[in-house]
């Protein structure tokens, strides 16, 4: 992460990691992304006192510890061998050798997504599960077209995930063309799949969900899926080859509920083909070459509730057409050249809207008058707008608001008083230089806060006294440089914290680590650019759930972090320096 830039894009919900032991999350490198979203990964905490493990759990744990002693589990009931398998994957102990014990175990789910070392040599045992196999995730593996051919006989397969499998091409798809029970197929970031290769998809008539995100070679190939009338979800985000002509076959997909075509070359004309999709409720057009004129087509979609027009060419011109989108609940208009005048046109839509993103739009205090009184609004993003204290006055009655982003606005400490009645707030982003301790003092009534971002705010040790009111905080960022060890002592009481970023506070020493050693729920910790040393690392031994540790520009070496990981922090998957 390094530098002191704190500008964070809002993330789609679906991008936030949601699996127990999310290895995906470590690959993304930055934990900042998901701290800004609502969703948290469900983390399997170490057994708390009083939770007695069952005998079955104890046995599974024992097997996991000495897996090399076992040659086969095929005599076990399927649900037990499945649990053993899951545990091995979870603890990263499964290898191509130990996998052999699972031959012919009639397993149903092989979730090997992003698992290290998976290649063609694993496929024989995988296919030996035969007709029992329902779901396979091989994303990020080295499996090739040849390896994929083993799946031919797993005819009951419902779900297949081949995201980020660089070595799979059109030939591989041919091998799975007979798996007509498939309901979900995912092939993200595949450079080799061509329009012609997509012809085999026409036989997968039961597909409900198809994901071709970042497949740059599929232009012209969507014609092969126009017969897949059971399809409910299609993702062709970031396929920058997609043009208007690719939209035409989509008009046949009458069951489509979710369509993502962000960052393609689709224009207003292409959108006109979508008019007949009566069930469409989510449409993501982020970065497409569309203007407000496309709203004419969208007005014909009776169930459209979630519309993303981020980074499109929307201006005030034609914005009155928004009033026809009566069922919108989520609207993203970020990074468009729209002004307060557009918000006035949104009035009719606003009565139902639950989430509105106006990031980096030319919105000011005047425009926010139109938001006043809309208690159904839950999420509001106003970062990088011209909104100031007067504007906050109009928001003071939004009692349903759960999330508000005011980073890089001109709101000041005195304006924040207007927010003190918003007691439903869970997430508050005040990453702005002019915010100080006095602003924090005005917010102590917001005891339900779980996420508080004060990245660039000028908070000092004195201000940390107010933090103690926020007992439910799970994520906290204070990186303005004003904290010392004395201030960090006040953070000690925030026992729910999972993510803590105190980087850029260059006066923090090992004593700060001692103060937070009791925050055992921490998953992510960043204290970069401080005076932390190797000898301070000992205080982190208690943080058994820690997955990410960032101590850049400190007197800490990768060697010592690795040593700490091997002896005390088994869950640490991402660390810097590395």
């Amino acid at each position, binding site marked *: 992460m390094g530098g002191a830039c704190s500008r964070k894009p809002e993330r789609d919900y679906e991008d936030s990691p949601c699996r127990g032991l999310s290895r995906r999350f470590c690959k993304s490198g930055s934990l900042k992304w998901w701290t800004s979203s609502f969703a948290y990964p469900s983390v399997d905490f170490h057994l708390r*006192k009083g939770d*007695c493990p*069952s*005998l*079955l759990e104890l*046995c599974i744990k024992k097997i996991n510890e000495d897996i090399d*002693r076992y040659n086969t589990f095929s*005599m*076990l009931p399927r*649900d037990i061998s499945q649990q053993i398998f899951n545990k091995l994957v979870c603890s990263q102990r499964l290898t191509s050798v130990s996998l052999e014990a699972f031959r012919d175990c009639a397993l149903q789910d092989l979730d090997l997504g992003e698992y290290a070392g998976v290649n063609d040599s694993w496929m024989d045992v995988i296919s030996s599960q035969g007709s029992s196999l329902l779901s396979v995730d091989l994303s990020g593996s080295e499996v090739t077209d040849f390896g994929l051919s083993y799946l031919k006989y797993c005819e009951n397969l419902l779900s297949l995930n081949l995201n980020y499998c660089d070595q799979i091409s059109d030939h591989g798809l041919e091998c799975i063309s007979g798996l007509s029970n498939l309901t979900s197929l995912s092939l993200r970031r595949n450079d080799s799949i061509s329009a012609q290769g997509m012809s085999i998809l026409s036989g997968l008539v039961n597909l409900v969900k198809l994901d071709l995100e970042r497949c740059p070679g599929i232009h012209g190939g969507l014609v092969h899926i126009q017969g897949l009338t059971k399809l409910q979800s299609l993702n062709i985000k970031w396929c920058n080859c997609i043009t208007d002509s690719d939209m035409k076959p989509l008009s046949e997909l009458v069951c489509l509920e979710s369509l993502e075509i962000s960052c393609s070359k689709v224009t207003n004309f292409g959108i006109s083909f979508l008019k007949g999709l009566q069930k469409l409720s989510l449409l993501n057009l982020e970065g497409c070459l569309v203007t407000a004129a496309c709203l004419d087509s969208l007005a014909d979609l009776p169930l459209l509730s979630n519309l993303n027009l981020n980074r499109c060419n929307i201006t005030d011109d034609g914005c009155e057409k928004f009033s026809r989108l009566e069922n919108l609940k989520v609207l993203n208009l970020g990074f468009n050249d729209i002004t307060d005048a557009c918000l006035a046109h949104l009035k009719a839509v606003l009565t139902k809207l639950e989430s509105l993103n106006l990031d980096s739009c030319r919105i000011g205090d005047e425009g926010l008058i139109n938001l006043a009184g809309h208690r159904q609004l839950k999420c509001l993003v106003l970062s990088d707008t011209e909104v100031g204290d007067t504007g906050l006055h109009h928001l003071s009655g939004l009692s349903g608001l759960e999330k508000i982003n005011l980073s890089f606005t001109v709101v000041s400490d005195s304006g924040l008083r207007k927010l003190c009645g918003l007691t439903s707030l869970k997430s508050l982003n005040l990453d702005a230089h002019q915010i100080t301790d006095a602003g924090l003092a005005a917010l102590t009534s917001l005891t339900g806060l779980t996420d508080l971002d004060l990245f660039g705010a000028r908070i000092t040790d004195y201000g940390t006294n107010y933090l103690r009111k926020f007992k439910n905080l799970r994520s906290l960022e204070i990186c303005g440089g004003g904290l010392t060890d004395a201030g960090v002592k006040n953070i000690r009481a925030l026992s729910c914290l999972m993510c803590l970023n105190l980087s850029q506070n260059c006066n923090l020493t090992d004593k700060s680590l001692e103060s937070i050693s009791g925050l055992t729920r921490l998953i992510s910790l960043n204290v970069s650019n401080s005076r932390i040393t190797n000898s301070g690392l000992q205080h982190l031994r208690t943080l058994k759930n820690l997955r990410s540790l960032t101590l850049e520009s400190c007197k800490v070496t990768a060697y010592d972090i690795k040593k700490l990981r091997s002896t005390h922090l088994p869950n640490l998957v991402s660390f810097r320096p590395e």
Partner: protein
Amino acid sequence: MRKEDTVKLISAEGFEFVVDKEAAMVSQTIHNMLTSPGSFAERQHGEVTFPEISTTILEKICQYFYWHLQFASGKETEFPIEPELTLELMMAANYLHT
């Protein structure tokens, strides 16, 4: 130990283990047998036969029952499992919902 507070668990080979009812009821399966209404023979006679569970495994399971009670009362020790028993023990644990 009063007779009505205990239960007799009988292994495949006919070996009998007399254990506290409280301990045996750590197993959800045994719990159901001993408490469900109706006239389960098990409930009337206070004994349960497990034709599928060997003596060695049943003994281990009884040890677990008492270990579980200890654990619940705050004494958190390690429960030893011999590697050669694990697979058979698992199947029994699965059956007994333990």
